[in-house]
């Protein structure tokens, strides 16, 4: 044990070498290397967790940097897990760091989760959150959940029995996954950079408490934090009555769950395309390209002909009729555009060809920012 590195926590009353050894023996998985994931990773790596895995298929973008301060301006465009691995290894070379450069899906979740003792959900969409919840419930893995919106955060621990032998999961709070557009995400709603820093650090705190057994972890409780008034309001969670929701009870059932668009099963008629197909469609006569990003999002497209319909006003746009036969939607990462494409598909069915640009503007940034 590196007693000098961990000296300040080793000398802590009630912590010491026993707790430090528990950290060294622990294997923690963090999903989403973003606003919540970055600070959680930094503190957990620094604290001496033995093995840390991180899952994220995304690349660093400039609009990440105000809150994901593990990254620098020079990292823009690079794979998050690659940059994070390098930096975290510099912070503490004694930690075994495993990087998974993919998004979490129904097909990879169980296999990855089974290698860790504790799962931390720092993702940014409901599809992943419900998938992670169900996978953890199926494998009986402790889950630290947190999410942020505007100036507020939520934090909870699931799948661990409390003193009364009671266990809960996220579906005991919200049994059914919210529909697309029902709850705005950070890109639509905005977020103050410090907020995920605070909540992500709280996630790391709960992980350390769970692993070492110090204090009282937030088991079967949800903490609501508001940074505008520094108020914390903690609510006790109890299990839902029977039959409120159904969790998958085996791997097959898990694989057949429907978490919606960006994780696994896609609406059949919406086609996700890459940049070559995008270019082909652009050349076709009857094509309408719609950018569903909010007006303040950058980069601004260099395309000569496209329409901007931000998600925040997309509902009212749906009332208008579109003449073109081909409709191509795009956004920053290809998640919102897929949701928008599905809404259009609901309206037009097979009367139109509806496409969503996979990976969005960020993946094909060069194409959209180079002068034609």
């Amino acid at each position: 044990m590196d007693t000098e590195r961990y000296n300040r926590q080793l000398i802590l009353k009630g912590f010491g070498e026993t707790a430090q050894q528990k950290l060294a023996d622990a294997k923690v998985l963090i999903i989403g290397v973003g606003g919540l994931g970055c600070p959680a990773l930094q503190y957990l790596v620094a604290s001496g967790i033995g093995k840390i895995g991180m899952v994220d298929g995304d690349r660093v973008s400039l609009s990440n940097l105000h809150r994901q301060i593990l990254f620098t301006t020079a990292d823009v465009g690079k794979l998050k897990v690659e940059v994070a691995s390098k930096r975290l290894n510099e912070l503490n070379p004694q930690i075994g760091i495993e990087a998974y450069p993919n998004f979490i899906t129904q097909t990879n979740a169980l296999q990855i989760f089974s290698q860790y003792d504790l799962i931390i959900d720092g993702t940014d969409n409901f599809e992943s959150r419900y998938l992670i919840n169900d996978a953890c419930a199926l494998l009986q893995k402790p889950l630290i959940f947190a999410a942020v919106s505007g100036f507020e955060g939520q934090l909870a621990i699931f799948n661990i029995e409390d003193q009364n032998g009671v266990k809960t999961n996220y579906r005991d709070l919200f049994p059914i996954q919210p529909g697309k557009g029902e709850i705005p995400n950070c890109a639509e709603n905005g977020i103050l950079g410090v907020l995920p820093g605070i909540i992500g650090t709280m996630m790391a705190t709960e992980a350390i408490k769970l692993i070492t057994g110090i204090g009282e972890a937030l088991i079967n409780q949800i903490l609501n934090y508001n940074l505008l008034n520094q108020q914390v309001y903690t609510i006790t969670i109890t299990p839902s009555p029977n039959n409120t929701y159904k969790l998958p009870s085996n791997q097959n059932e898990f694989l057949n769950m429907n978490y919606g668009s960006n994780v696994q099963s896609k609406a059949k008629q919406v086609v996700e395309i890459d940049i070559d197909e995008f270019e082909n469609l652009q050349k076709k006569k009857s094509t309408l390209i719609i950018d569903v990003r909010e007006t303040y999002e950058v980069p601004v497209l260099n395309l000569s002909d496209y329409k901007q319909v931000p998600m925040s006003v997309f509902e009212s746009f749906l009332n208008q009729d579109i003449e073109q036969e081909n409709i191509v939607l795009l956004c920053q990462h290809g998640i919102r555009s897929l949701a928008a494409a599905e809404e259009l598909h609901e309206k037009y069915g097979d009367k139109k060809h509806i496409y969503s640009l996979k990976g969005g503007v960020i993946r094909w940034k060069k194409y959209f920012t180079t002068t034609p």
Partner: protein
Amino acid sequence: MEIQLLSFGKIAEIITVKHVNIEGISDTDGLKSHLEAQFPELKNVKYKLAVNKLIVQSNTSLTHHATVAIMPPFSGG
């Protein structure tokens, strides 16, 4: 009967009051209908209630000065 309301996230934009005076309503089902009638947008979002810091899993009776928290799911990270 006076109830203190604590709204979180998007719900705070929908429910703009911090107290309600509900005569003739004695439980959370009644309160929900009352709030959804007064703030129709509430019908379009998912939310969970807690009475005095305990999550509501089935209709729960309310007492004078109870605090009811109204919490939506957050997804941001």
